[in-house]
């Protein structure tokens, strides 16, 4: 037992419990502001995480269920940053939540705890438990606007689909255990090194893949995403798109590259096909969308596809590209959703952006930058992330020409995506009729978080070197 390794998670849990207590004594009018308290607390914890050097040797706790290494630390910081931005967004959103604002923030913290545990998972049981902690928190969060039909519908859909995927996941874990006799990653690595073609083990791992594919919304497990993204409260959508997806990614890395690489090595074709179809599906379906959140839902499917590109090459450069891409994606999506949160009050239709350039040039500029970054245009973060991913798969081209096709597909997807991303920009600047031209006031914390996002987008796009080094260092924990 080594509790001290989990100090970051413990701090978040303590913060959440403290917040619950604090809420009891907070007057109703001030309750929305509790989000700032939570964000500030998380900022402190984030700062604390930097007081510690990245461990060169991984340390484990709870009978090797929990591991602390560079990769875990990278993702913990990532999730903390995401939660801070989402909490600030939530305060802006709080006037649309009828009751229980305090609980809303606390649930975000619990989901965050789950994500942080997920990044340290070293055992399939740990994978399952942390995922359930995330998903169950999200069931409540998605349906939090109880007076709105859309939110409830999304909640129910997410609940049922999530339960289904959990069932597949736990069944898969059971099969793996039955075949390999262990659920521990170190143990699985030993087993698969010996015999990598046990079909029962494969069956179990494929079911695990389905369960994790559900989390990142990869084809063919992506059906739920657009409906849930559209219906959920905007900050929750943002947290689903960034946090939940990244949790799925880190678990994919842990399981398929950390625990069973000999098996995954025989599945490259499957991963490539999944990546290609996911990219095409997300981008093509996004074209006719008029609802901003639904559009970003499809865009998030496409992005899951880009991330899978990095996984499909099964090497360090692909993985560090994934981490880099995720970092850029975090700032980009946080900026986009913060703006949507502030602007789209009545409806999430693209037309609600009309006249935004006059109502608030700041928000218009931020959303434009976010769209440009998502489209992968230099000098923003999205460009460099896509560049690194494509570079990593093209480098593998000589080994397997299929990677060239995959790169072509990805490029096609990027071109298609420009069409709908620029549709959003067109709505901001070129809409003829703007029904509402009242200026939008943006609170100081929201300005701050938008500023952080914009700086993040530019920094990652202009000075890729440092961030890439950090990503490479984190990935080195996987020991290729």
């Amino acid at each position, binding site marked *: 037992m080594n509790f001290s390794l989990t100090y970051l998670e413990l701090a978040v849990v303590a913060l959440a419990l403290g917040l619950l207590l604090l809420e009891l004594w907070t007057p109703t009018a001030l309750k929305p502001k509790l989000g700032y308290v939570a964000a500030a607390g998380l900022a402190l914890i984030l700062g604390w995480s930097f007081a510690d050097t990245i461990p060169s040797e991984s340390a484990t706790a709870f009978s090797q269920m929990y591991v602390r290494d560079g990769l875990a630390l990278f993702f913990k910081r990532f999730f903390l940053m995401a939660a801070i931005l989402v909490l600030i967004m939530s305060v802006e959103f709080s006037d649309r939540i009828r009751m229980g604002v305090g609980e809303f923030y606390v649930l975000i913290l619990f989901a965050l705890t789950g994500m942080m545990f997920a990044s340290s998972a070293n055992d399939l049981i740990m994978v399952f438990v942390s995922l359930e902690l995330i998903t169950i928190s999200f069931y409540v969060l998605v349906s939090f606007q109880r007076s709105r039909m859309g939110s409830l519908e999304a909640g129910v859909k997410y609940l*049922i689909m999530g339960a289904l995927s959990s069932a597949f996941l736990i069944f898969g874990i059971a099969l793996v255990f039955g075949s390999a006799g262990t659920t521990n990653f170190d143990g699985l690595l030993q087993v698969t090194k010996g015999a990598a073609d046990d079909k029962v083990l494969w069956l179990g791992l494929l079911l695990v893949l389905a369960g994790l594919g559900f989390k990142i919304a990869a084809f063919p*497990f992506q059906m739920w995403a657009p409906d849930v993204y559209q219906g959920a409260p905007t900050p929750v959508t943002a947290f689903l798109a960034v946090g939940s997806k990244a949790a799925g990614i880190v678990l994919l890395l842990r399981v398929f590259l950390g625990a069973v690489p000999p098996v995954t090595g025989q599945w490259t074709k499957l991963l490539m096909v999944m990546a290609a179809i996911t990219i095409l599906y997300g981008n093509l379906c996004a074209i006719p969308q008029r609802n901003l959140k639904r559009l970003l839902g499809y865009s998030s499917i496409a992005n899951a596809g880009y991330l899978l590109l990095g996984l499909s090459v099964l090497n360090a450069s692909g993985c560090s590209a994934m981490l880099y891409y995720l970092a850029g994606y975090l700032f980009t999506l946080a900026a986009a959703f913060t703006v949507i949160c502030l602007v789209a009050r009545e409806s999430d239709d693209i037309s609600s952006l009309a006249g935004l350039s006059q109502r608030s040039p700041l928000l218009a500029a931020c959303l434009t930058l976010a769209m440009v970054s998502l489209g992968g245009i230099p000098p923003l973060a999205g460009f460099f992330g896509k560049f690194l991913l494509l570079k990593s798969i093209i480098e593998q081209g000589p080994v397997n020409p299929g990677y060239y096709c995959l790169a072509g597909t990805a490029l096609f997807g990027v071109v298609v995506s420009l069409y709908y991303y620029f549709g959003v920009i067109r709505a901001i600047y070129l809409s003829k009729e703007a029904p509402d031209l009242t200026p939008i006031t943006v609170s100081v914390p929201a300005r701050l978080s938008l500023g952080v996002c914009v700086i993040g987008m530019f920094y990652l796009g202009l000075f890729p070197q440092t961030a890439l080094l950090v990503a490479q260092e984190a990935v080195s924990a996987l020991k290729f």
Partner: protein
Amino acid sequence: MNDALPWPILFLPLIAAVLITLFTQKRNGLSAALSVGAIAISFVISVILFVNAGEAAFESKINWLTVGALNIDFGMRIDSLSLLMLLIVTGVGSMIHIYSVGYMHGDPSFSRFFACLSFFTFSMLGVVLSNNFFEMFIFWELVGVSSYMLIGFWYQKSSAANAAKKAFLTNRLGDFGFLLGIIMLWSITGGLGFATLPKPGTTATVVGLLIFCGAVGKSAQFPLHVWLPDAMEGPTPVSALIHAATMVAAGVFMLCRVFDVFSLDALTVIAWTGGVTALMAALIAVQQNDIKRILAYSTLSQLGYMVMAVGLGGPPQAMFHLTTHAFFKALLFLAAGSVIHGLTNEQDIWKMGALKKKMPVTFWTFLAGTLALCGVWPLSGFYSKDSILAEAFKSGHLALFGLGVVVAILTTFYMFRLFFVVFLGKEKSQAAGHAHESPKVMTLPLVVLALMSCVGGLIGIEPFVGKQFGMTESHETLAIIAPFVHAPVAAFAGLAAVMVGFLAAMSLYAKAQTDPLPAKLQGLAILLRDKFYFDELYARIIALTQDALASVADFLDRWIIGGLMVRGTQGTTELVGRAVRFVQSGNLQFYAFSFAAGVAVVLYLVLYR
């Protein structure tokens, strides 16, 4: 400490530009103070750097990006070459910034002007300080952008907007070659840093010529010279700063910076391009009537001299002339601006006259600039021009030497034509009668620049740059008479040229009310007046080739790309998108079914095949 100094020099003007754009748009005084302050501090730091810098070149850099074999730094290279340019850009630039405060007074976009000016200074300093091709190219393009913004500063005037467009597009043409050259150089040598340029003459001629394309565009050499005269549509301080002293000199500077890249054949091409430009521009200048255009063609002609000097293997001579030219041409432009300002925006020299009494400071400083440009002993222009002529004579290019002398005659002729008509003789219009001297803030920079134009030839610029290019000759003789001792042929030829030009101009224009030359030269004068019809020629070429190409492209675009590929693809994509969306029905049972089906398909694919 020296390592850190170049950074504030570069970034102060950028900070000023950003601050003005974001915060002080409505406060003119503050904007001007920011802009002038930034460049003045940059100048002071440059001087400190100049004093502190030792003999050896050094670089201060950070690694910006490493992708595979390509390693790109963002760095600053400090050596004689860049130190000299730093002093010119910030020193002459400071004068022009100060002058602009007076010249632009009352303009509704006063703040925007200074923001653009500071942004230009930033870009130009970037070109000067770059330590590799990649970085230089970025700043090279930024210089193009800021020049575009400044030429088209009065964008409400369609002529200014067109001129800005023309300058930008013409430069694009040269820059395309430049970029190709850089890529080729990289593919051959694998490096882009200036510190590790290949050994002299080892690279292919074509690389050198492609890189030279960049200079042809930016320094307005034949055949891409057409944009510079039109660029005079910008405010006069801009003409002085960008289109006389600094930006157009960037091409020459770049040639000197990467001199080792050029093979002997490439140098010959460079020398002749410069010579032809010098002659052609000087001829055209003889028959122009717009005061700024005459100076613009004169600039072209002098740039030709510099490029020729580089081609003759004399970067120090080129940099020497570049420096003195920056002084006296900035002076001439600013003085011309003072005249235009005094005559409420009159630019036709045949509507001026007799300004000597009314604008004494402008008159005397303009005279100093004219004498310096013509190359009258012992003003700066004499020494720098002489060093180029001497280089031509010494290296045995007698044709280019002769050409240089002819250009010197023409230079004196058109400058004194301008001088006599504008400042002496009778008033030729009402506006000339009401002329008044400009305010102190404008005349002070004139005086400073006039002083520099007078003594600029004697302060040891050539040997300072020469060190870097292995020039070791140390003159024992007194600097002021050195040319007559070391290269008497060139020196006396230069002086004779001045005499011939001056006498010709005096006999024709001392008392002229209208231009007597067209009557004498007839067709030739018209040819010169119409600038050898280059604009018309290019317009025809563009009409023939580009329009034909455009109609083909239009056809392809409209029917093949637009119709078949884009609309076809877009239609198909959109159709697919809509079709796939039907799958996304919102029906939960179907979602669950498809999830399970997906799992089944994956299992089948992996386990049973």
